[in-house]
C-alpha cells in the first residue's frame, strides 16, 4: 500500500464541506489527519493518505476539482527564483 503526505488548503464555501469524510467514502483510501487549522476564511489539513497509488491520485484529483489546493505536506513550492 502506498502512502502520501499532502497539505490540502481550502477557503470560502469549501470550509463548510466535509472534505475528509468525502475522500474516505468516495475512494478506497485511508486518511489520517496529522495537523490542521481552520478559521473563518481559510482551512488547511496535513493528511496522510494510504491506498493504491492510482486511487490516491484519483482522490486528490477529485479534491482539486472541488477547488481544494493540493500540495506536498512540508515543502510548499520547490521551484525557487
Amino acid at each position, binding site marked *: 500500500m502506498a502512502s502520501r503526505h499532502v497539505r490540502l488548503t481550502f477557503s470560502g464555501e469549501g470550509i463548510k464541506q466535509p472534505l475528509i469524510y468525502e475522500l474516505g467514502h468516495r475512494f478506497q483510501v485511508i486518511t489520517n489527519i*496529522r495537523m490542521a487549522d481552520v478559521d473563518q476564511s481559510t482551512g488547511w489539513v496535513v493528511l496522510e493518505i494510504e491506498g493504491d497509488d492510482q486511487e490516491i491520485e484519483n482522490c486528490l484529483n477529485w479534491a482539486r476539482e472541488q477547488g481544494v*489546493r493540493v500540495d506536498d505536506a512540508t515543502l510548499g513550492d520547490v*521551484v*525557487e*527564483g
Partner: protein
Amino acid sequence: MSFSHALRCRECGREYPLDPIFSCEFCFGPLEVAYDYDAIREATSRDTIAAGPNTLWRYAPLLPCNPDFKVDIGTGFTPLLKADRLAKAVGVDTLWVKNDTVNPTWSFKDRVVSVAIARAREFGFDAIACASTGNLANSVAAHAAAAGMECYVFIPDDLEQGKVVGSGIYSPTLVMIEGSYDDVNRLCTEVASVRPWAFVNINVRPYYAEGSRTLGFEIAEQLGWRTPDHVVAPMASGSLFTKIWKGFQEFHKVGLIEEPKTRMSGAQATGCSPIATAYEAGTLNFVPQKPNTIARSLAIGNPADGYYALKTMQETDGGAAMVTDDEIVEGIKLLAETEGIFAETAGGVTVACLKQMVETGLVRRDEETVAVITGGGLKTIEAVQDRIAEPLRIPARVQDFDAALAAREAAPVPAGA
C-alpha cells in the same frame, strides 16, 4: 567542526539525526537544524569572527556543516551601505542598504547554496540539483562547477534566455520541463525521492535554509555588533525573512550582541502576495496564490515558511506590504538613481514596499532601518529596459552635442517615453 547536533521539527519539537531529511515523521512539519549554543559561545567571539575570511565562512561555528567541505567562491560579507539619498527619498532619517547584488552569482542565493553544497559533500553526495526560475539555478550550477560535482538544474520551458544562459554557462545538465509551475514542482519532488542527488531545497533543505542567517549575522556585525530598529526584506518562501531574525537571536544567544528588538517587515509583489495578504487579513493562515508578477524571483505561490514569516512579524511587531509591477519598476529606478545600486525586481519590491511602509507608518521615520537587496539588476533587465530615458543620439560634432544637450535640458524627456 560543526556545532549542530540534531534536526528538530519546528512544529512538534521531535528530534532526528543530522541526515538528508526534511520532514517530521510524526506531524510532517518542517525540520530545522538544532545547535549547541553553549559550545558555540565557548568557541566564538567578536575577535575570532573579525579575524575570519571576508565571506560567510567567518561564521563557520554557527553553520550546520564542517568547513573542511566548503566550496568557497567568495560569498557573503557583502556591503552594508549608508543610504542617505534613498533615506531622504522615502522619508526615514537613517537607512542602510544590505547589498547582496555583489555575491558571486549576483544574488543572496549564493549564501544558501554555499551551505547546502558543503553539507551535501559532507554527506557524500556526488550530484547536486535544484528547481529554479533563475537565481537558485545560477548559484547551484556555479557552485557545482567549482566543486567538480555533477549538477542537474530543472527549469520551466518558458524561462528567459538570459536566465537559461546564466545557468548553462557552468555546464550543468539543464532540464527544461514542458508544463505548468505545478508540474515542475511535482516532478522535482518525485525525482528527489528516487535519485541519489542533493536537491538543495528538498532533501538538504534544513541545511540550505541556514545560509540565510548569515545575512542577520553580517548586518549585526557591520552595524558594530548591534541590530537595527527595523529590517525590510523581500519574501518568496518566507525563509530568508525568518532566518534574518533567527540570526539576530542566535548572535544574542551566543553572547555576541544585546537582545535584539528589531521589527521585521516583509515585502511582496501584489501579483504574488500570499503572506502579505494574510497579514492584512489578520490571520496566520495564508491562502496559496497563482503567481502573476514581474518579480519572478519572489513568485512562490505556496510559501513553505509563510506561517513562520507571519509569526515573525507578529513576534517583532513588524508587518508586510505589497506593491504593483509598476511600483516595483519605480523601486528599482529609485534605488539606482539615489544610491547607484541596480537591483533585480525583488530589490524593487523591497524599496517600493519600504516607501509604502513609511507612508503608512509601519516603518517610523526615526527608526534605523536596513533594506535587504537580494539580487542584481542584470538578471531582470526586461523589467526596466523600456523605462530608461532615451539616450541623446547625435552626429559626431560638438555643435550637435551642444544643441542636443540644450534641447534636453530645456525639455527633459521622461524615462520610458
